[in-house]
């Protein structure tokens, strides 16, 4: 057993989980800020971005060191590659949370209006995707990750519905255009978060099964399925 290497992998995993927690919290706070028109929460999201960026760099540095110093193979190599990609996705999730917070700050400066969009419903679906993608990483379970992929279409449909309804509202009530535009951008930001959760799930499947499931490439083209047991031991 390569103790030092295993300690490095454990540290990488812990750092990514912490990063995942920060990104998840940022999205939840931004959505709650939208629903409550809460500027304090917006401020917390903006301030939290620095911590996410610092974490991103720390994770990349550690992954780079492990690749250079330990020459990882097989499941360990796939794990480190997956972590670096998940890391980048989580940082982008943090960016999307900041974008939402900025939209909320703009909205709060305007009169509150009724809008034909259920942001609470979209955010609940997106938060569930982020949470489950991180759970699939924690548990090293490709089945959980697969379920996240299947949720992405649902969020895409919600975004499309929001777009249609909000454009219609803007046409009918031009005086609410700015608020509707803010809501539309929030729906789009949430849909992007869902895309990042999907990417995370795909990376977990790559780590656990060694299969590249991106871009809907049929499974047969990815070759035979390897042993899944090995991935759980990297945890």
């Amino acid at each position: 057993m390569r103790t030092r290497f295993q300690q490095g992998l454990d540290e990488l995993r812990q750092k990514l989980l912490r990063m995942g927690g920060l990104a998840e919290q940022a999205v939840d706070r931004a959505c709650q800020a939208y629903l409550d028109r809460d500027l304090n929460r917006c401020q917390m999201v903006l301030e939290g971005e620095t911590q996410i960026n610092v974490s991103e760099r720390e994770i990349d540095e550690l992954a780079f060191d492990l690749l250079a110093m330990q020459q990882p193979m097989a499941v360990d190599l796939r794990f480190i590659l997956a972590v670096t990609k998940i890391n980048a996705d989580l940082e982008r999730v943090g960016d999307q949370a900041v974008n939402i917070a900025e939209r909320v700050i703009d909205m709060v400066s305007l009169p509150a209006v009724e809008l034909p969009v259920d942001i609470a419903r979209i955010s609940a679906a997106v938060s569930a995707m982020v949470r489950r993608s991180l759970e699939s990483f924690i548990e090293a379970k490709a089945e959980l990750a697969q379920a996240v992929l299947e949720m992405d279409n649902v969020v895409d449909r919600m975004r499309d519905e929001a777009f249609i309804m909000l454009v219609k509202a803007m046409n009918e009530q031009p005086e609410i255009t700015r608020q509707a535009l803010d809501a539309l951008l929030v729906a789009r930001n949430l849909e992007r978060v869902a895309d990042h959760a999907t990417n995370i799930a795909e990376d977990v499947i790559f780590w656990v099964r060694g299969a590249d499931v991106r871009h809907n490439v049929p499974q047969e083209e990815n070759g035979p399925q390897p042993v899944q047991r090995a991935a759980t031991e990297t945890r």
Partner: protein
Amino acid sequence: MGVGIQVENLNAWYGKSQALHDINLKVEANHATALIGPSGCGKSTFIRCLNRMHETSPEATVKGKVKIGELDAYNGTSPTQLRRRIGMVFQKPNPFPTMSIYDNVAAGLKLNGYNNKKHLDDIVERSLQSSALWEEVKDSVHKKSGASLSGGQQQRLCIARALAVEPEVLLMDEPCSALDPISTGKIEELIFQLKEQYTIVIVTHNMQQAARVAEFTGFFLLGRMIEYDKTEKIFTNPSDKRTEDYITGRFG
């Protein structure tokens, strides 16, 4: 040109102790195939069965079929005939210490009765060029002894000696384990170039080396070949848990 190697149900023993169990393997011609595994797993025994060196050990026996191209190694072929077609390079460079560089390379040919000086000169130069040693020794092939060269040069001299008899297969048993990184790099580059003309089977403890030089890799454990596949598959996504445990350092 190199030839393929076909191994069927190969078993080997040292006395009553069985070292290899039912090995089946098809080595592709003009490719490098690496054999990896922990010490004592049988990988060196395996390549020594390919050129019938195993049977030179006391009480060693072999059962099974080995075909080098169309030549049946254990049926109607003498060890000498076989070894003319299979060169071998060992872990520790073993040049003939008192012979010149030239005589080291020409030794195998002379043993086989070649004595045409012009012909020998051509083969010695070509072999030393093939082993990437010619430029370093061309002015001293008659003056310097094999033992006066550095370890890396000695190993390339041994490769030249093996190539001089124009084999089709080159067996390498941990050829870089006694060499520094620069000499190792030269041997690895050489393996890359030599496989255009020869079929190469290399035993190595260095998994990064296997990944760098070989298109195919076999993993041996306790005398059995656990997995054999394209090298990139073995090192990124092996099919057998035991292979994965070994290459990720979880045992061995």
